């Protein structure tokens, strides 16, 4: 079961184990420059608001309501990262527009190991983008669905789904109890009269600038995950105007630019976990055009200025007891 708590999606698997749960939220952040450089992790600027999509069913297209899940606001060209928090091991699949952000293939139910199409919690603390090379991702950047920038449109030629899709599978109880004995345990839908969305209402995610981030290999193997007891969620992304029309609430303000952040002398982050191996990037994802490159191809300038400059870097390390994140709780360099 999935509940919405303080703008976090909380996945619980009470039929598997009382401790089997994980929290996922979407962090506002700076958009890193979309150039040939590879950047460190940008900061977290707080969680995006999340609402049940059913709460706005009477003013949304039927297709959108049928998908269920939640809805969040996001500005065009705004970036996000996905924050994971779990003590119990959980395998999590992430897709944008039903394209897997790890291997670049179309969404299929279940997990696969060759290639690995999921991340393993709690060792994977966050995901900032598409896995394009070993140790390198391209940042998730929101663009209007239908303008040709999203990973979905680049790989399928169609603008159908948009948003984010998540599925989570807990570790099987027997495996968990063997690997982590108790003493060592880690810490309403309305029918609507119309079906077509106005153009550019929905947002999808597209590849932005390059960033250092490793997607860790599954150290357990596919057999340990309880695929019969998974949960999944569709996260619809609404642009600012759509969000205000839907909820009557103002969306969060536009984040500062990378240059403004750097000029304020604030740090970027790096994460280092020597105990885990990173998986390779996906060819399909490596071949995607970044938003800037696609804009050049289309003869448009979709991104506002985004230059950066030299900035201090804070190194984050894995911890057993503290929830470290590039929201700022790290150890100094």
């Amino acid at each position, binding site marked *: 079961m*999935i509940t919405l708590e303080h703008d976090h999606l909380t996945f619980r698997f009470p039929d598997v184990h009382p401790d089997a749960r994980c929290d996922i939220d979407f962090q506002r952040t700076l958009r890193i420059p979309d150039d040939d450089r590879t950047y460190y992790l940008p900061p977290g600027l707080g969680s995006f608001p999340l609402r049940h999509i059913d709460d706005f069913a009477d003013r949304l297209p039927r297709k959108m309501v049928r998908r269920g899940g939640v809805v969040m606001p996001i500005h065009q060209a705004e970036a996000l990262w996905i924050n994971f928090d779990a003590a119990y091991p959980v395998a999590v699949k992430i897709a944008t527009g039903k394209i897997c952000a790890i291997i670049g293939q179309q969404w299929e139910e279940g997990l696969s190991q060759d290639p690995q199409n999921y991340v393993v919690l709690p060792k994977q603390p966050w995901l900032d983008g598409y896995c394009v090379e070993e140790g390198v991702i391209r940042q998730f950047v929101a663009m209007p669905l239908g303008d040709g920038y999203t990973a979905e449109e680049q790989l399928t030629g169609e603008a159908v789904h948009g948003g984010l899709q998540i599925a989570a599978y807990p570790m099987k109880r027997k495996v968990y109890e063997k690997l982590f004995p108790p003493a060592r345990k880690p810490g309403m839908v309305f029918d609507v009269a119309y079906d077509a969305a106005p153009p550019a209402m929905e947002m999808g995610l597209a590849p932005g600038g390059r960033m250092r981030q490793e997607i860790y290999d599954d150290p357990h193997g596919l057999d340990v995950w309880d695929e019969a007891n998974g949960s999944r969620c*569709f996260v619809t992304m609404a642009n600012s105007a759509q969000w205000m029309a839907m909820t009557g609430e103002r969306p969060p303000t536009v984040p500062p630019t990378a240059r403004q952040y750097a000029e304020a002398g604030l740090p970027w982050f790096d994460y280092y976990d020597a105990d885990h191996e990173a998986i390779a990037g996906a060819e399909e994802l490596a071949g995607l055009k970044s938003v800037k490159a696609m804009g050049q191809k289309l003869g448009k300038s979709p991104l506002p200025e985004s230059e950066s400059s030299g900035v201090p870097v804070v190194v984050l390390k894995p911890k057993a007891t*503290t929830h470290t994140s590039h929201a700022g709780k790290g150890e100094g360099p």
Partner: protein
Amino acid sequence: MPHFGTTARQIRERLRESDRRFSLRQVARRVGVEPAYLSKIERGVVAPPSEATTVRLARELDQDPDVFLAMAGKVSSDLQEIIRRRPKLFAELIRQLREAPDEAIFRVVRVVRDGDW
């Protein structure tokens, strides 16, 4: 219910063992209070702080804000507003669930609906 100040201090000191950013002074600065005031809160010399400060402290220590507010003898203003809008319904619901085990409460909690996609 555990004592608010004692619990906050225990959690902060545990975090400080591996991260010096959780010293009294640094946590007080990030929460927006004077170190002397946070020290008094932790020792129970003064009453728990305002709702906003309690929530900031909970988030700083990676704790659930509602649990911290309950320890401070408070209920968040958004929950109060929910109850005030439909007092009879929510008062009855809460009384009905008073002794229910957690699993039973989770069965009535609103879940995020999965659909066709």
